[in-house]
């Protein structure tokens, strides 16, 4: 077992639309360690979401290789992909993507439904996670009755409930004010402390600065990939 949870080599991806082909990822090499917290930055259209979709097995890549937890992820059928996603990956989205007619607890519990966990059990587990997010008393509220920060914390709880190895967050604070963004980042850091790797796509420096490593994308290639020294500093300060 190697120490990397995600290993990407010479990854290429094009979107083909009829006769048009848009080459979005042009040879990405990337190695994320277990338990690492990394941010991916880059201007709009640079291919961040495309990369994250491939890492989340929501989309296929054209060339190169991708290993998740040392498993070579190739073109696979949807059933297999769904099972891998359920087992290894938690998603956090900018727009939360909660199911509107399910209450907070049911939303959090949903991944366990697909693991065939009984309703009683999965609701109990969901309550534990809501407790961790400080949302126990909101368990029976619908998403529409909650603030943005609360919704994102529910989404994080949902991502965590299946005990994934890595959390992929696409601009998780993009729809939140700076105060709430910081709260969400605190939660993500706490989650990271438990050993779960986190990849955050963001274009905010404030956010990126709170991660251990910052990868910058530009026009489908990695422009820079370096350890974030301010993160260490901040940690030292806190200690």
């Amino acid at each position: 077992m190697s120490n990397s949870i995600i290993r990407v080599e010479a990854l290429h991806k094009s979107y083909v639309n009829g006769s048009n082909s848009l080459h979005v990822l042009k040879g990405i090499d990337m190695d994320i360690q277990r338990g690492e917290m990394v941010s991916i930055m880059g201007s709009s259209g640079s291919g961040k979401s495309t990369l994250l979709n491939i890492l989340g097995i929501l989309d296929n890549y054209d060339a190169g290789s991708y290993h998740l937890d040392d498993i070579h992820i190739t073109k696979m059928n949807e059933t297999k992909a769904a099972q891998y996603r359920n087992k290894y990956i938690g998603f956090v989205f900018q727009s939360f993507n909660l199911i509107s007619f399910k209450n907070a607890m049911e939303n959090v519990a949903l991944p366990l439904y697909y693991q065939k966990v009984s309703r009683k059990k999965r609701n109990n587990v969901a309550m534990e996670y809501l407790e961790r997010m400080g949302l126990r008393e909101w368990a029976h509220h619908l998403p529409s009755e909650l603030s943005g920060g609360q919704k994102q914390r529910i989404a994080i709880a949902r991502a965590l409930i299946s005990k994934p190895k890595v959390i992929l967050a696409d601009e998780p604070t993009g729809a939140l004010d700076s105060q709430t963004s910081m709260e969400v980042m605190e939660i993500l850091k706490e989650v990271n402390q438990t050993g779960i790797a986190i990849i955050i796509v963001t274009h905010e420096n404030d956010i990126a600065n709170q991660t251990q490593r910052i990868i910058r994308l530009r026009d489908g290639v990695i422009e820079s990939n370096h350890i974030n020294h301010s993160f260490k500093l901040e940690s030292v300060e806190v200690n």
Partner: protein
Amino acid sequence: MLSDTVYVLFNILKMFDYIEEILSTLKKNKLRAVMTGFSVAWGIFMLIILLGSGNGLQNGMEFNFRNIAKNAIQIWPGRTSENFEGLGKGRSVQFTNEDYDLMKRELSGIDDISGRLYLWSDVAITFEKQYANYTVTCVMPEFINIRLMDIVKGRFINHMDIKENRKVIVLSQTIVDMLFKETEPLGEYVKVGGIYFQVVGVLSNPTDKNSKDAILPLSTGQRVFNGANRLSNLALTTTSTTVEANKQIEEEIRGFLAKRHRFSTTDQEAIYVWNTLESFKQAQGVFAGIRMFVWVIGIMTIIAGIVGVSNIMIILVKERTKEIGIRKAIGATPWSVVLLVLSESLFITAVAGLVGMLFGMGILHIASTVLTNVAATNETIRFIFYNPSANFGVAISATVLLVVAGLLAGFIPARKAAGIKPIEALHDE
């Protein structure tokens, strides 16, 4: 054993869990689900009502046959309509006791047989000062096994009556009521055409409370009323229960009588044969046809329902693209999405169908109750339309139909749902 039970219980719990998950999404679209289900409910409702009505008509038809054995054959003499072996047409055929004896002896396949002699129409029957005119029929004891009548009191004509030419009579309840008022009829004497007969039995006709039959032993009737050895007609039952075999026996009888009375077997007017089983089966065939027609209409209505459900489900799936995308992102397999949509459409059609079925059955039940009440005062309804009901078999067939309908309706939407790509579904906001 215990582990089996636990396993079953576990699966039942999971089943509830599963239904709960389906219901949670349907709850959101309650009104639409109801609207959609309506056409299916209507289809099943129509089916049940029409099938029930078909049964009602059939019950009415079959009631007409209750006073005759199902495999009875009756033969009336007629007039020849073809020249035969040098004999001119237009001869009338006359049955005699000889026909009866020979048929009984020579022909196989006959169970019970009786000759029947009608006395000149409307003979006066008198008891003390009461009298009225009725048709008097003279028969053999077996007659009661051919024309089915209930013995209310006493007995029917027996073989001793025939052998000893006893002057006994069996009367319909209606006649008894009119002649005897309060007097006990058994053992009393009534005058028939001026001759005394002792009443030995009281009858009622199962299809007609008002029928007025006065029945004498055949031998007595022939002797007393100058009947010689003549018979008005012949009635018999066969030993077989299929139309084919009965038709076969009928042909043998026709051939036998044709030879004896010297007419052509193709002569349709020399004798008239009423084959009950054939008529019964023909009538039943008509109802089978009606039933088939009803199923076709019902199924077409339900197909319209299926298309409706399918359309709505497609719209629902489209509206739920994002939700389904989310589900897939967090681990829903395509199959689980297919199941989700299929079970929803199944649920809609099943519930709607059940409602339609219950409504239909309810209305049939009410109609049946009303008809029973009407029949208590007015018998004629029984011959036309009675006890309209959809039986268990129909309910089962309808249920199977519903399940198939639900699955069909869900098929296209389910495939659409399974084809949803999470990245595209999650893209828009």
